[in-house]
């Protein structure tokens, strides 16, 4: 019986270190200035506009995926106001479980963006298809860059 309990304990620890859900609320595996580094790193073709947390919450349809507004505990979201599909967002959730739900929401958001721009702005599709969506612990990072390789260079330590 003890062996089973110990095995379960170690399995839980191991699972906790793997991917989304690995960190407890409040820890940030990405550098605090990652979005600024990306914004200033020639990744985007235009200055991006800042979004409020409420707008980001609505825009990414987090509620539809079971994430309450209070589960989005911190955010930085910069986005084109319509000229392009470029954007960068770092979203911190109350738990790894919430971050996983947020990841599903953002995956759907990216697909919706691809569908909505396929005929409207086909030049934006490679940016959306080359988007980075990284999840570490309770933090999600989304990057839709103009210069994908420049973004890749900055994000490489985390991919």
């Amino acid at each position, binding site marked *: 019986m003890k062996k089973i309990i110990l095995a379960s304990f170690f399995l839980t620890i191991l699972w906790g270190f793997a991917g989304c859900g690995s960190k407890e609320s409040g820890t940030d595996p990405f550098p605090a200035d990652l979005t600024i580094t990306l914004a200033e790193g020639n990744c985007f073709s*235009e*200055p991006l*506009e*800042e*979004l409020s947390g*409420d*707008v980001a919450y609505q*825009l990414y349809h987090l509620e539809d995926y079971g994430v309450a507004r209070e589960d989005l505990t911190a955010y930085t979201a910069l*986005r*084109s*106001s*319509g*000229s*392009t599909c470029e954007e960068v967002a770092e979203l911190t959730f109350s738990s790894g479980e919430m971050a996983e739900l947020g990841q599903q929401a953002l995956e759907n958001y990216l697909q*919706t963006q691809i*569908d*909505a*721009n396929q*005929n*409207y*702005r086909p030049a934006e599709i490679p940016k959306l298809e080359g988007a980075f969506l990284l999840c570490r612990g309770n933090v999600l990072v989304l990057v839709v860059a103009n210069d994908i390789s420049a973004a890749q260079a900055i994000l490489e330590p985390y991919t």
Partner: protein
Amino acid sequence: MKTKLAVLLMTAVLLLTSCNTSPQAILSENDFSRSGVSGDHAPASSPDPGTSRSDITPPAFPQKPGAKYSAPVSPEPEEIFYDFTKPAPESAAVDNAYFEDAAFIGDSRTDGMLIYGGLGTGDNLTHNGLTIFDLESNPCFSRNGVKYTALELLEQNTYCKLYLCLGINELGYFNDIEFYDAYLDAIQSIRAVQPSAIIYIQGLIPLNEGVIQATGGKDYLTNDHLVIYNDLMRQAAQEAQVVYLDLYSSFVNEDQELPEEASRDGVHLTGNYCKLWAEYLRTHTVDPSALGLDQEEAS
């Protein structure tokens, strides 16, 4: 003799009294006939005799069955008065709660206004590239995996305000009569599913053609054609008796175009200008009673 004189005097007084009341009776009859309601079914209360007949605008637009506009919605004629020949005048600013029961139908420009304008509420029924021709035919809206047209989504809720802003993507469609007819059809269809809502037609915000060219935008995006469309939209609003919002005049500069700093591609507004758009909406609202709309019943 005195008795006969008294009777004659009383008869004269009675006759004079009845003469004074007859104009009101004529006005009432005319009002009811204009509204398509026979005298047998006329409301008990008479219209205000102080309102001239020219103040009362008849619903000239063809109505779909069930539309509330076709009925004499208010017994007080002055309450259904609104000057549809002019854009909505500036009004006292409302707060964002005003837009809680509003829906915004539009293209990517309206989407930008909803994201960056700061209203923070209202249903977003926008889609990139949406046109006035798409409202009933293009199932481009996805909800829980099901595709809907804009009109089908409208049918699912009750709104008190509907903001419509479409026309930019149609600038490459060189058939102005069809554009005009499509706007009239759209208004009629929207009114049929949302009979109590105030329908606001938003005139198109100008473009910056220099920025459009510099950023590789479409060459059919011109202010010359946009001005023609705005005029058609204003006429459609007047014809259909809905509110027209003259956003163009608030955004055009001395060169008759959108200021260069207002957009990075000459079409979509930057965040600050989206806030100006939202502020325009807050300060150009119309009381539903002025349009003869009974929103208490709807809510």
